[in-house]
């Protein structure tokens, strides 16, 4: 029996993406054990919202031209991406960071904080992709999608997922207990859900509130998704994408710093 350990050939250590992919795959492998219940939650909620609010409430809403369901679908898609990534990167990552000590186990290997955070953010974004594609399929079947630009929406969902995944990890890195996430979901996520143009155009908000809304990532996300579904795609969308990319950079840098401070002390 030879478990012996010889200074065998040194393997090149993994780069950022290769390392992040290993962490992503670990998350995916453990999710596979309970994907059924997870899928019901991730897909059921946005689809039910779309049906109940879009068609139920929609009958009483006049937006002049577009049906309310058509207006709402992009918002539901974007907020489904937000919610899926936010839950995973807060509750999920916090569990791995504290209770399960998965992060400690990973950090005992050549995987560093950067790859670890990137992997968990990408995993959160993968859950966004899943939820958003489900909404997209339902919206397409219901005739709410009017442009081939909808084909880029999975990529947009990933982008949204990365934004909220990185933000969620920032929050998780500062949390002392699960209760902490109640504040984040109530004060940040719910506020965005209600005031980022998901349910009504933000043009109907007072000027100061509109300014606040443009500071929120979901507003940019909804704008991009709505343009793609309706086929009104223009170069201005690149500005919205750019804002999200900058937010990703900031949140990722902050998450790396704070997760690092928490675990390497």
């Amino acid at each position, binding site marked *: 029996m030879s*478990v012996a350990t010889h200074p065998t050939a040194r393997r090149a250590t993994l780069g950022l993406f290769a390392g992040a992919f290993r962490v992503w795959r670990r998350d995916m492998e453990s999710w596979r054990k309970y994907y059924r219940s997870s899928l019901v939650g991730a897909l059921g909620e946005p689809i039910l919202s779309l049906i109940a609010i879009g068609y139920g409430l929609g009958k009483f809403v006049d937006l002049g031209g577009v049906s309310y369901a058509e207006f709402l679908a992009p918002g539901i898609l974007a907020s489904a991406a937000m919610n899926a990534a936010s839950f995973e990167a807060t509750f999920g990552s916090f569990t791995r960071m504290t209770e399960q000590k998965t992060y400690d186990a990973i950090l005992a*290997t050549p995987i560093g904080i950067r790859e670890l955070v990137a992997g968990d953010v990408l995993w959160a974004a993968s859950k966004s992709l899943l939820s958003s594609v489900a909404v997209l399929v339902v919206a397409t079947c219901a005739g709410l999608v009017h442009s081939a630009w909808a084909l880029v929406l999975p990529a947009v969902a990933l982008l949204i997922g990365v934004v909220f995944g990185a933000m969620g990890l920032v929050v998780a890195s500062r949390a002392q207990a699960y209760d902490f996430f109640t504040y984040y979901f109530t004060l940040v996520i719910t506020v965005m859900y209600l005031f980022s143009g998901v349910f009504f155009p933000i043009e109907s908000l007072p000027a100061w509130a509109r300014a606040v809304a443009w500071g929120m990532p979901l507003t940019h996300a909804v704008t991009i998704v709505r343009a793609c579904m309706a086929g009104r795609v223009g170069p201005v969308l690149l500005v919205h994408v750019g804002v999200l990319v900058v937010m990703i950079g900031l949140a990722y840098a902050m998450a790396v710093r704070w997760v690092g401070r928490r675990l390497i002390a």
Partner: protein
Amino acid sequence: MSAPIIEVAGLRKRYGTSEVVCGVDFTVEASECFGLLGPNGAGKTTTIRMITCFSPMTAGRLRVFGLPVEPVNYRAIKARLGLAPQEENLDPDLSVEMNLLVYASYFGIARAEARARVRELLAFAALTEKATARIGTLSGGMKRRLVLARALVNRPELLVLDEPTTGLDPQARHLVWERLRELKRSGVAMLLTTHYMEEAAQLCDRLVVMDHGRIVTEGAPAALIERHVGREVIEVATGDDPARRARVLELVRPHGGRVEALADAVVIHTNGAVDVRGMLAALAGEELVHRRATLEDVFLTLTGRELRE
């Protein structure tokens, strides 16, 4: 003689105003099993955290595999290191086998190579039958063996074990010891913390006893026993009777040795020039135990008997 695996000199760690490691020096040579002993709060785990790249040192010199332990070298050091932490941190949602395969992937080990390695390690850890079991269904001993197997997935040159058998029953403990001895024979250097003195005596070539962040003694187990306690120990039971205890103390004092009076016993360490025969003759009729000295005696002598919590 090759370069030391671990070199620690003047190592310090401060958290805020409290210093938990206050100037520690030791080296671990290739193929050596080195023990860090000490009561709770002695600074053992913090020392291990610094060595395994989990905690930047406040001051001192620290090299592992000849590399200074600083962020630029973390990866290179961790690629050659195996860590079995004190708190079990296996992946609860993955099977036994997947735990090892996933861990192998973090080291960049290719799937085919990893599969062969995992088969080997499952056999080594006596977990082959449990390959597809969920972590929640394993006993404490099995989990510990799996943590050990996981620490070996990258064929480390240094294995760091933080209390490898705490909480295990005797059978499980002996199985872990057997495996660790096997690894030692194969040439892996080991650094282990424990507060089981028997474990240290069984496994360690050399050890240090730490207390309050400092090293209080260093040496091979047998040499430490000889130096601090002597070969033999005589324990005389005195019950809860101060008069009897005073009488026993009077009987033993003229014969030398280090005499310790406990609440219900008198303990004599026979180091130095002790007339053991004379003492035993003087104690004829007393209820006593005459036994070989152990590391536990050294430990209690050096770190005292008060509770550490």
